[in-house]
């Protein structure tokens, strides 16, 4: 018969394996890439970190510190990693995040073969999408303009294919 500790370890390993299968291993992604991936699926990385920190801190306080027990080392590490940044750290983080984002987009624009969106997002949609400024009711001629643009983007083969053809 398996003891409880062994069962827990096996369950934990299974969860880790499952997570790796779903999201890739921890080493595969930088923090910025992970943030971008989360953003693509509608999760704000900052809020997630803040909530996780709040939850863990509550757990550490109520289940350990206030009962006179040592907070487990892994929990301490996680608390340190998730600790909300100071204003200076936050400024640096926002700046480096913006630099990385813009660099990624510019690199993708220069290197015609690369895609800016994550693999998840790209495979989920091949439709063009829109953003408007000062939008009112769209007339038939407006819709025609947009449809033509949409068709143009759809029919225009990916730049990589175009370059191959040119060669």
């Amino acid at each position: 018969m398996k003891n409880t500790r062994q069962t827990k370890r096996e369950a934990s390993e299974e969860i880790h394996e499952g997570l790796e299968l779903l999201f890739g291993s921890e080493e595969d992604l930088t923090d910025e890439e992970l943030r971008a991936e989360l953003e693509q699926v509608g999760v704000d990385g900052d809020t997630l970190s803040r909530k996780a920190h709040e939850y863990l801190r509550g757990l550490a306080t109520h289940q350990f510190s206030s009962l006179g027990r040592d907070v487990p080392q892994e929990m301490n590490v996680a608390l340190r990693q998730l600790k909300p940044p100071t204003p200076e750290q936050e400024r640096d983080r926002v700046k480096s995040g913006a630099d990385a984002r813009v660099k990624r987009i510019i690199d993708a624009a220069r290197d015609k073969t690369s895609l800016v969106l994550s693999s998840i997002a790209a495979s989920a949609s091949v439709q063009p999408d829109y953003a408007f400024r000062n939008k009112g009711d769209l007339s038939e001629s407006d819709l025609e303009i947009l449809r033509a643009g949409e068709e143009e983007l759809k029919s225009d083969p990916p730049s990589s294919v175009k370059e191959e053809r040119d060669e």
Partner: protein
Amino acid sequence: MNRECAIAVREQFKIQGKTDCVELARQLGLSVREVESQGFDGALVRSASEMKGIIYVKRTMREQTRKRFTIAHEIGHFILHGEQSLSCGSTEIEAWKGDQSNPERQADEFASELLLPSVEVLNQIGSQWPSFQLVGTIADHFGVSLTATARKYCDVAPQDCAAVWSVDGIIRWMHPSSHFNHWIAVGEKLGVDSFAAKAFAGNVIPQEMQEVAAEEWISSNWFVDNAVIWEQTIPMPHYRGCLSLLWAKRQIENRPTEEDELLQELDPDAFTLRRKNWPK
């Protein structure tokens, strides 16, 4: 992140001074086209799977500066927002409002910083006092509208300033500097002796900053004696509007501090047997 992304774009493309929006769009894989649109000023149609897209701009927009801002706004969507379908109506644009997480507000902030980099604007301001002459010089230098420049001016200027837009004699929005802590009632009529109200009444108004009674613009119970505010107004008849720049050069209010209010609450007579009246 919005401003920072615009700063990063300027750094990456080594943009100094005026931004060539069409060229920038091209470098990002976007083509810009003017069209005879009726229902939008600007639109971005982009591929969800590749770095390309088309920015449409309404041909009949009067000012080139507005077209440039529209292109910069759409570039902002392209950089900041993954693949959300977005639309921005005229009400949001007029008020330029919304919370920080509003994508339209984010694209506007991006456009403002892309076209009017704060650091360079601050350098241009130097030690000059607020005026539309100064705002106009900055607007010309960066190729941006007076309105967008007045807002940016208030963002970065060290003085207590506010840009106010009114239409048909009603205040539609105000954009204060971080030091301007006075209450201007948006949605209310202009004070009759403000220069803006006089402009709406068809009178000739000064072309320089001049003093008006502070109560013409500000609602307060704590005005100091003879409180004045400096005002310069530019009429924009095409929009049936006036753009005003206000400057609280000297102290105009003497508000009770939090401590004063607390002391009043803790009046020892208020809660003792000696109290004669019920506290109001």
